[in-house]
């Protein structure tokens, strides 16, 4: 198995802590050497997943938690976001992740799907796993060019 460092944070499922988890993602991404634009992408994509867990995983009077786990590889960052769980076994949970199907992810689409769409657009890979709760698994690779950005209005200059 490829070596990675692992960092995890567990936050109460409350909107005011989404920004706290986002700061952690930002710090890790910057440690790994992601570009400014990639760090912003990672912040948005992970906030979308965390926001979704915070807003939909638990009932009004239910106290819940959201776990955000990051596996730091040399050439990529893997982020796992899970509701309804204690700290998870990163490797074990990863085995059960599969591509999402529109029908089973009505929870995301109900919100207009904008959050899900952003996650998929800003990350290189996004997968979902439903069991007791929802686990979102996202990957972004270092140094992958996004074609659209590099065209950069050179025509104007």
């Amino acid at each position, binding site marked *: 198995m490829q070596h990675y460092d692992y960092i995890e944070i567990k936050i109460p499922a409350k909107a005011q802590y989404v920004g706290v988890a986002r700061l952690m993602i930002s710090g890790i991404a910057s440690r790994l050497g992601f570009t400014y634009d990639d760090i912003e992408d990672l912040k948005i994509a992970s906030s979308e997943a965390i*926001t979704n867990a915070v807003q939909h995983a638990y009932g009004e009077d239910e106290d819940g938690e959201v776990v955000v786990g990051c596996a730091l590889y040399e050439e990529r960052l893997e982020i796992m976001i899970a509701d309804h769980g204690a700290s998870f076994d990163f490797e074990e949970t990863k085995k059960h992740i599969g591509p999402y199907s529109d029908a089973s992810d009505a929870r995301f689409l109900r919100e207009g799907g904008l959050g899900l769409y952003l996650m998929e657009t800003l990350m290189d890979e996004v997968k979902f796993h439903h069991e007791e709760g929802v686990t979102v698994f996202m990957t972004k690779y270092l140094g992958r060019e996004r074609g659209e950005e590099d065209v950069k209005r050179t025509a104007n200059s």
Partner: protein
Amino acid sequence: MQEMNLQVELLEQNSVQYFKVVGEIDAFTAPVLRERLAAVENVDGLKAELDLSEVDYMDSTGLGVFVGFYKAVSANGGHVKITGLNKRLNRLFEITGLNEIIDIEQKESEDHNATL
């Protein structure tokens, strides 16, 4: 009391309602923004300008607020213009296709290729 990293100021109340939004728009702060905008969205023929030049983080919760505001204002014969978008925010509007629907304007300094 939780410290909130968002300020919404209504700077002009003449013919154009000019809102200056400062800080981060996410799941925590979006409800405050929604509330501020909801206070004016039903005015007939409202002309609103939302200046986002000092917004340093926004995700789909912010886009959702602006879509809602745009819909309400349009339904009352008004117009919404979103200004001061930096490259990052502009990209969010572009990849979600909202730039085709809502009147948006980039920050002047980012309007052309800065090669200095």
